[in-house]
């Protein structure tokens, strides 16, 4: 029953919700970002960050710093917070928290398979994996030759197993098939997560379906734009779109037949929430689309904190941290390469 979850939520989830809200107040603000953008070297960035909550993680790093070190340590902080929450959580919150990491697991699987295809060393690839998406048998992915072996040897024991039923073929893995596999897995994951949230009911279901619908629609637009001009047929493209969201089903029909960006814009402008995103871009331009989508996502994630007694705050917090790490990476790269004029191209302020 919507509205009565306030009576019993605090018994199991009250402590963790309070921790998440406390963590959220330690996200970097616009003033912090302005200070960071004024930095000249990476050591200045390290000094500014040591005044924030990232201090303990960065203070032991020797100079000269690399941008990858900064990003790695910040990600480590996110992983520590996540593990703390996961160990304290009970069902169904613990299942919910695990669902948040399946997206990273899919990315890691694809990373290792692609790297093996291009004959890279397994250890090197394992270091590049996102720590939230690690699972035990991940190193054996390098052995598989085609998708059936991939499933049979490694993935059947992981939580990703049910998502593979739609994309098992006997073809060998090459670049195109791997991308299709990634998108098919992600589609199955989003739909599964959506169903799980609907089962939880209440405020969680309502807020999460809004956030997941936006994610599904954003992926649909990205798939469309990235597959313009490739060999991906319209039918295949349509199969990669998720079965929920604002664009389902009529928007998907229109997106499937698009052949350039202006047609995509025409299809999306019929939906008022997305019209405001596309109106920020001028005709023919697609570089700013990513930033526009990120800004819209951050706005929706911040709105989810307005309500209490639901699980979507955990999802929103993880996403906001990831956005912050992306911001830090962009700023560090710009500073390291002396291109500070381009810093504001891709930094999304959270507060």
């Amino acid at each position, binding site marked *: 029953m919507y509205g009565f979850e306030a*009576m019993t939520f605090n018994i199991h989830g009250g402590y963790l919700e309070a921790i998440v809200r406390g963590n959220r107040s330690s996200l970097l603000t616009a003033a912090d970002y302005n200070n960071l953008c004024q930095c000249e070297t990476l050591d200045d960035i390290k000094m500014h960050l040591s005044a924030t909550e990232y201090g303990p993680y960065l203070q032991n790093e020797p100079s000269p710093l690399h941008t990858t070190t900064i990003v790695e340590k910040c990600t480590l902080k996110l992983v520590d917070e996540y593990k703390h929450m996961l160990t304290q959580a009970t069902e169904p919150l613990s299942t919910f928290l695990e669902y948040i990491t399946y997206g990273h697991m899919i990315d890691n699987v694809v990373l290792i398979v692609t790297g093996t295809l291009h004959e890279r060393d397994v250890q090197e690839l394992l270091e590049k994996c996102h720590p939230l998406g690690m699972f035990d048998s991940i190193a054996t992915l390098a052995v598989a030759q085609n998708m059936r072996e991939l499933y049979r040897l490694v993935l059947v024991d992981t939580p990703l197993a049910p998502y593979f039923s739609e994309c098992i073929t006997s073809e060998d893995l090459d670049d195109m098939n791997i991308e299709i596999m990634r998108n098919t897995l992600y589609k199955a994951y989003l739909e599964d997560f959506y169903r799980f949230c609907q089962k939880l009911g209440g405020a969680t279901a309502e807020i999460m379906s809004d956030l997941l619908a936006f994610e599904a629609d954003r992926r649909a637009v990205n798939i469309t734009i990235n597959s313009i001009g490739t060999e991906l047929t319209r039918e295949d493209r349509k199969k990669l779109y998720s079965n929920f969201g604002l664009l389902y089903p009529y928007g998907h029909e229109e997106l499937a037949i698009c052949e350039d960006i202006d047609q995509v814009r025409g299809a999306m402008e019929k939906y008022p929430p997305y019209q405001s995103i596309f109106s920020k871009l001028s005709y023919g331009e697609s570089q700013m689309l990513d930033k526009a989508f990120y800004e819209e996502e951050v706005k929706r994630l911040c709105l989810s904190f307005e309500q209490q007694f639901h699980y979507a705050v955990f999802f929103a917090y993880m996403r906001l941290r990831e956005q912050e790490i992306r911001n830090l990476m962009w700023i560090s790269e710009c500073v390291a390469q002396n291109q500070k004029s381009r810093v504001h191209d891709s930094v999304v302020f959270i507060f």
Partner: protein
Amino acid sequence: MVTSSSSWARALLQISPYTFSAIGIAISIGVSVLGAACLIGAAIKAPRITSKNLISVIFCEAVAIYGVIVAIILQTKLDSVPQSKIYDPVSLRAGYAIFASEIIVGFANLVCGLCVGIIGSSCALSDAQNSTLFVKILVIEIFGSALGLFGVIVGIIISAQATWPMK
């Protein structure tokens, strides 16, 4: 005379109202834990809020004290009745009045404790983010604790009419 209503009356006169008041008090104290859990979590990241937000937990305890007070008042109203007059209408009325008074106080305390606990958790969380909000949300919490007070007043009025027949 030997009908189901008389066996109810016998049960009423034999089950001590203490059971009902004890249940009411236990539930209302237990519910204050709901609010306290949020207080602990919020205090980890913002330790300054602990002393001010103990007020929420104290509200919940005040609700429990209402229950104890009413139980003691009603206990003084219990009196022995001669055997011939146990099923007298007057004594039945007294028994029912005490029962009703305890049920009212017990459930009003339960709901009040629930309400104060939920508002207390929101108060702790918002105080951790922005300390100017504490007093404003505390005012809402005070209105919520008035529910328990209403229950006590109604319970005392009803039980004031519970007089046993003269010997």
